[in-house]
Structures are given as C-alpha cells and as structure tokens.
C-alpha cells in the first residue's frame, strides 16, 4: 500500500486570489502565438462573440500558488505531469479577480513500462469575483519508482 497523508484527501484549500490585467492576458496570448482578435485586440475583440477581450482557455496556468496541497507520498523522488482534464466555464476578462481552490482527490498505484508508478490527482477550481466557475482543472502527477523521467 502507498504511504501518504490520507487526512488530506478531499480537503479543500484556498490557494490565493489574483487580479487579472489586460497585459497579463495579452502576454499569455502572445506567448502561444494566438492571432484571434478576441484574445489579442481589445478594440477588435468588441466585434467578436465575446463582446470584448477574453483570455484563452489555458490562461488558468498564470495563477500560481506558493503552497499546494501535498499528500506527502512516500514514493519516487520527483513528479511529472501525467495528464489533465480541464473544463472551461465563464471566460476571463480584464479586471477579473480569480480565486483558486484545490483539493487532492485521489492517490493510486499503477504499473507501466518503467515499473510501478503512483499518481496524485489534484483538482483545482478557479472562480471569478461573481462566484462563477471559470475553470476546473484536474491534474495527475506521476511519481516513478525507478526515478525514470518517462515511459
């Protein structure tokens, strides 16, 4: 059985609150080569279905927490991102305040070509100042016994 801090399972932690600026949104859009006016042109965006500048869906990645819930899994030395399930709801607009909450929803074992692995699943919810869900991101971190970086 995997050794970890089971008391943390399901417990919700508020990780922080973040101000969204037009500059942050456009820097992100530019970094991934977006050309769509809804993401890159505040004036042009007014003529799109969004009615104004909105952030690309993966913009949630700019919100960083100093501390994230840690189940203290006693296995492997380093974690890698194994996968994500993202749901997108209300768009993010300049001036929004986003609150980030997270909880560890699962810790489980699996075997693969590099041997035994432990997966830590963390669900992060992003909400805006109106209490609307903006995004829900479930991320799986994998830790490998062999310390190998990949399959």
């Amino acid at each position, binding site marked *: 059985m995997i050794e970890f801090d089971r008391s943390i399972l399901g417990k919700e932690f508020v990780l922080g609150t973040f101000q969204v600026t037009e500059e942050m949104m456009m820097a992100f859009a530019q970094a991934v080569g977006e050309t769509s006016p809804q993401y890159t042109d505040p004036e042009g965006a007014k003529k799109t279905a969004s009615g104004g500048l909105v952030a690309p869906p993966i913009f949630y990645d700019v919100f960083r927490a100093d501390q994230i819930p840690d189940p203290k899994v006693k296995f492997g030395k380093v974690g890698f991102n194994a996968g994500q399930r993202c749901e997108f709801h209300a768009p993010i607009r300049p001036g929004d305040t986003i609150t980030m909450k997270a909880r560890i929803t699962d810790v489980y*074992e*699996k*075997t693969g*070509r*590099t*041997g035994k692995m432990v997966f830590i699943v963390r669900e992060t919810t992003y909400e805006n100042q109106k209490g609307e869900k903006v995004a829900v991101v479930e991320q799986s971190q994998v830790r490998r016994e062999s310390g190998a970086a990949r399959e």
Partner: protein
Amino acid sequence: MIIDMHVHSDVSDDGMASVETYMKWMAKLRRNYRIDGIVFTEHRLFNSDADYEALAREYGMLIFKGTEADTDCGHVLCYGMNGKILSHFDLKNVQLSGRDLISAMEDAGGIGIPAHPGRRYIGLVEHLEKGYEIGHALRAAEQLNGGSSKQENARAQQLVVERQLFGIGGSDAHFVSAVGKFMTDFKRPIHTMQDLVEQLYSGDYRPITLEDARIQA
C-alpha cells in the same frame, strides 16, 4: 465474428471517451469494415454497475465488460469477471499474483489472458525470462496489441509460438480513433460473455488487423 478485445473507455483513469462515443465511431467504421463487438477492459476495476445492453441493441453490436488487471507478471485481460473473483482479488493492488489470477479465472468460468506480453515490465515475457512460474492455466496471450511497438508485438508472437498458446488481437485504444487497429476474428458466432469465454478456450480464432476486416466490394 470480429471483436476488438481490448479497449478503455473514460471509466479507465486514462481513457478519453464514453462507451457511447465509441459506439458512434464504430457505427461509422462498420460501413467499411466488419466489426461485431467490443470489450471494455478497464484498468484495475470491473464496472459491475454499468449496463450496456440498451446501447448494444441500439447499435446492433456486442458490448462486453472486462478488466485489465495489474499483476506481478504484467497486465492480464480478464473476460468473464464475476463476484467470486472480485471478492478474492483487490484489483487496486498492482502486485496481484498473475498466476493465481489466471488460475482463479479459469476455475470461476472466465479466462485471464496476458496483455501486451512483449512490453517491458508490464508484459509476461520479461517475467518468464526471469523465472516466473506462470502455472498450468495459461492458454492464450494478446499477440497483437495496438499500443505496442513492432518489436513488442514480435516478442508477443514469439511467446505464442514457443508456448503454443492461442493469440488474440486488441487495439488497446484509449481514445476513439484508435479502436479496431487490431482485433480478433472468431470462427463461430458469439452472443454472450459465456460464448466468448468458451470460444477463447477453443482456440478457433486469430488476431487480425483493421485492414483484414475491410469489407470487399
């Protein structure tokens, strides 16, 4: 009858699509390829509560439920799961005895078939080479797996030949467009899981590619 014996729906932790989404895709595939059924072999669990009867009727195809278990000699595909097996084996335990599981499946009226035997660590071949005692219940192995490399499938084929096993084919699809890559062509009709298990023990089948299943004009 042609059946994809190894598919993962979103019930598996790393599966991407629902059973219904798979069925819609297969309905389209069937215009050009013969495919009669599919087995959802979910990772480390058996989806007891799911009932795919209505979907199977709607799409005119067989939909079976199975399991892909993690064991101490690699992954094992289980067909004919039942309460007896589930109460004896904790499928979340990735170090289950593969030998005991395969033997117990036979005793309980099902069959355990090593998945992708040619893969490192999670394939049977490597464990046999290290001296693993598989026991007497081993009858078949997954000779063609859609997620394995050519070398991995070649090692699986070698196992089948050396141990005179029966060979099945499965796509190991985790998303819809990968389904059907490899399948199993059974000589006799299959209607129930019991029929499938009987046929698996009979050996009257062979692994095939999607192209083998193309409907000739």
